């Protein structure tokens, strides 16, 4: 067992914000979400936080651990604690704080819907997996014949809408209308799933707006912070390239 000091951001409506320090007895193998759970269960039941799946699928527990955006359900305690100083846990940035570690994500989800975010990959519906193709280990299929066009989709569909990229983005700090890395990556994904000119025009119009891809100032923090390797920054840059090429073609009277 370890005795771990943990410093947690506290805020309740009508009260001043502060940091509370707790000393938690916890197993060495614990993850940071276990630390937060223990504080809530054994020290302060008024601590407000969000969590659900405990295995990096729902994205709901995202917080900042020692200043960096992380999913506490997959961050081991021993990876963030130096054995002396308290682990500092704070809510995500660029979201209004509702209470303690809980942030308001309604606006974020609405933005994701507007940006055509789809959670499931259409291609998953026809992957040729059958029971008798499972490997000896009983876990991984022996062979999976991926459709030719799957590679460019399958990374983004790992997006769990945790909001970590929105918190890490310095541009979001000063433009709360910026669609943001997750939304722009969703637009990229939706755009590459369709050849319908009307749909393409709508999606590129969203990306080309005042608060779209040109608002990004290339800090690349979204890609660095993303726990799911979605790489939103590269998607934003790819959208920019397409928009710039379309403008150039239009300028020279070429077919778009």
């Amino acid at each position: 067992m370890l005795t771990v000091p943990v410093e947690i951001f506290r805020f309740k409506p009508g009260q001043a914000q502060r940091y509370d320090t707790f000393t938690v007895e916890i197993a060495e193998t614990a993850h940071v979400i276990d630390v937060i759970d223990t504080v809530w269960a054994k020290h302060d039941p008024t601590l407000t936080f969000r969590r659900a799946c405990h295995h990096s699928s729902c994205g709901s527990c995202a917080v900042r651990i020692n200043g960096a955006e992380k999913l506490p359900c997959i961050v081991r305690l021993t990876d963030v604690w130096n054995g002396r100083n308290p682990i500092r846990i704070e809510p995500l940035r660029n979201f209004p704080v509702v209470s303690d570690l809980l942030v308001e994500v309604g606006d974020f989800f609405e933005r994701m819907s507007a940006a055509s975010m789809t959670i499931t990959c259409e291609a998953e519906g026809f992957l040729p997996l059958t029971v008798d193709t499972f490997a000896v280990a009983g876990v991984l299929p022996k062979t999976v014949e991926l459709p030719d066009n799957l590679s460019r989709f399958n990374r983004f569909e790992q997006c769990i809408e945790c909001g970590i990229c929105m918190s890490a983005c310095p541009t979001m700090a000063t433009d709360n209308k910026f669609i943001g890395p997750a939304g722009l990556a969703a637009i990229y994904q939706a755009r590459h799933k369709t050849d319908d000119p009307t749909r393409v025009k709508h999606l590129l119009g969203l990306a080309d707006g005042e608060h779209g891809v040109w608002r990004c100032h290339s800090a690349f923090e979204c890609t660095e912070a993303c726990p799911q390797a979605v790489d939103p920054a590269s998607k934003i840059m790819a959208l920019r390239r397409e928009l710039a090429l379309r403008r150039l073609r239009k300028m020279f009277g070429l077919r778009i």
Partner: protein
Amino acid sequence: MSTLNYSKTRQAARWFDVRRRKAGMWAYALNRITGIGLVVYLYLHLGVLSMLIQGQSAWDAFVGLARSPFYLALDVILLAGILIHGLNGLRLAVTGFGFSAGAQKALFTILMISGGIILIAAALKIFQI
């Protein structure tokens, strides 16, 4: 619902907060610091040039001052700002249109090392004046 929101000034300060951040954020912050520095320098430069209106003696007096080690050190700092801002601008122009976005950290490192070499060579020249 009553929520905690931070002021615009506090949010803008995040442009310069590189704690726990990676190379891209360092480049982002450096570009802003050097950008602000170069704008300030531009106005200082115009102010200095306006000394010409006061005649040759005023200008010669300033040039004498500008050759002091302190001013030469300021020249080196100015050149460092130009190199950081300019070379990082090249990186942004390349990656900003979807080319080598995955190599942005390597590009930053290579360009800053190149800038450092140019700066050292230039500083040696400047202090020989």
